[in-house]
């Protein structure tokens, strides 16, 4: 599929909702010289207001739920939400823990799930590539 509607690289905002940092490290690994997604212009940004993609890690701790919603609302449309890791997808090893209110899709709409504990950088990069295609379709629908 050729990309016509989106004529820029994707920028992602990473939010940790209580992750053990395993998934966060794998996201950073995708930016290291071995994978180097920045050569495609894909990079992490410091504010959701600049982002096309939300990378969510963690099983959503009780305190993080309103913050996650706020970050989602502050991301401009069209946007794609990628959940990285088993915890955010279905609770993982923290399933039914007393201080969790997740998984992520109980609070915000999720477009792509990347299972794994943690998932490999290749899987995260594939998810971002899929997000690109989804955004392309969303942009075309808006236009």
């Amino acid at each position, binding site marked *: 599929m050729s990309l016509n509607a989106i004529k820029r690289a994707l920028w992602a905002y990473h*939010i940790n909702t209580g992750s053990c940092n395993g998934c966060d490290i794998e996201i950073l690994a995708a930016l290291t010289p071995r994978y180097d997604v920045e050569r495609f212009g894909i990079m992490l940004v410091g504010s959701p*207001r600049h982002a096309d993609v939300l990378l969510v890690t963690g099983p959503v701790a009780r305190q993080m739920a309103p913050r996650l919603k706020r*970050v989602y609302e*502050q991301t401009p449309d069209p946007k794609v939400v990628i959940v990285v890791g088993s915890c955010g997808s279905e609770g993982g090893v923290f399933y039914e823990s007393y201080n969790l209110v997740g998984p992520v899709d109980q609070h915000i709409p999720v477009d792509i799930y990347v299972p794994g504990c943690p998932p490999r950088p290749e899987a995260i990069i594939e998810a971002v590539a899929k997000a690109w295609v989804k955004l392309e379709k969303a942009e075309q629908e808006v236009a």
Partner: protein
Amino acid sequence: MSILGLSYSPWSPIFWLLAFVVVMIMAYFFRRRGQKKYKKGTTQTKIFLCGEEVPEAKQRHIRAHNVYWGFFETMKEYYDANIKAHTGIINDYVIWFLVVIAISGIILFIAGVV
């Protein structure tokens, strides 16, 4: 030479005016290239504070007193004594004035100046 002369000088008003115009044009150019799809009146146009709720403008401001906190803490004894003396009542200030004048007069009298 007139102050409005066009020769180069960092204090020339023409120079500053031109710099201001150039900066405004650049700001307008970058602003035009910005994101236009924000939904007005929603959270999307509010300040981003890492997902935290944005407090009221009054609570966001850092007052001068906060900046000088260490200074006031170090000089606490001095300020406590002085703040007590400054009651805000004009009668107290007049009494202080008279007392200082009286003491100064006595010192000057003893010293033989007057």
